[in-house]
């Protein structure tokens, strides 16, 4: 891509990622939550990939790392459910103390589940994008080899 696109990306992509983290952390107080936070974080990775192509300035998670993080999100989600089950409550019940409403550390397991959903959705969509992008590149290379 252009020099302008690369420079603007370098100075703005951290803001996009920070906004995604804000959406996750304040998901139970403000509009936001795990879904949109994960998607915004995935979008910040995709932004860097689109602007820089094969040589990004920082090391981005590859297919193996993002798949591991995605599965880790699923395990955290189910693990919270099993902890509730071990305490004698129904599966995935909200077993923590509720805390004071309208503060960050409140609402029991909801912030933890938000984090799990963030890993699951964000890394899942980023992995889908990586796999689809890889097909295009490999096909172009195959075509060049055939010629």
């Amino acid at each position, binding site marked *: 891509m252009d020099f302008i696109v690369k420079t603007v990306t370098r100075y703005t992509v951290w803001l996009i990622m920070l906004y995604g983290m804000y*959406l996750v952390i304040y*998901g*139970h*107080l*403000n*509009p*936001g*939550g*795990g*879904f*949109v936070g994960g*998607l*915004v974080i*995935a*979008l910040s990775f*995709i932004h860097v990939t*689109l602007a820089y192509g094969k040589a990004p300035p920082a090391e981005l998670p590859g297919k193996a790392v993002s*798949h591991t993080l*995605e599965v880790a*999100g*699923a395990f955290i*989600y*189910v693990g919270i*459910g099993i902890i509730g089950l071990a305490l004698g409550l129904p599966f*995935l019940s*909200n077993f923590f103390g*509720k*805390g004071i*409403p*309208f503060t960050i550390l*409140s*609402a*029991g*397991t*909801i912030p933890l*589940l*938000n984090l799990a*959903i963030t890993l*699951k*959705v964000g890394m*899942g*969509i980023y*992995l*889908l*994008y990586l*796999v*689809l*992008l*890889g*097909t*295009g590149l490999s*096909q172009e290379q195959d075509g060049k080899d055939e010629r």
Partner: protein
Amino acid sequence: MPIETWLYCIIGFMILGSIVALELSDLLSAVVSIGMVGLGLAICFLLLQAPDLALVQFVIEILSVIILIVMLRATNQRWEKEKEPRSLSIVKVTFVALAMIGALPLFLGLPPFGHPLLEVSSYYFAEGLQETGSPNLLTAIILDYRVYDTLGEAIVIFVSVIGVMTIFRRRKKGGSGHGQ
């Protein structure tokens, strides 16, 4: 201006954008038109008092446009070459118009816009903050009352990722001969 007038304008814009997207023979322009339709839907959600949905729809639309453009780039096809004969498509348009006419009486039986019959949510309004501790009632429903629903959604995304990776799996160059 009342909210209903705004909604008529935006839904009309969305219908127009969809028809443009389906009738253009340039596939890249069609994908961008679909992006415009999705952004119109995000504005509708904002007007209908659903800010969470507006955020999600906005981001999802950008991502789906990116994915569709990746597909066009991977296949290197920009123009729609195949068109249906006019006589055949007239028959199908007639069918769609008949479906519209046949469904119109059903919409007259619905409650008027702005006065829903659903009263289930009064329980959430009364007890939601005490029971879950989350002021955002949407998050409270997704991650506390209907948490199994979200678990199923996570499983759907997982299956989708596994499906895409299986479709594009590569056999190892050295090992394929021994395997079969």
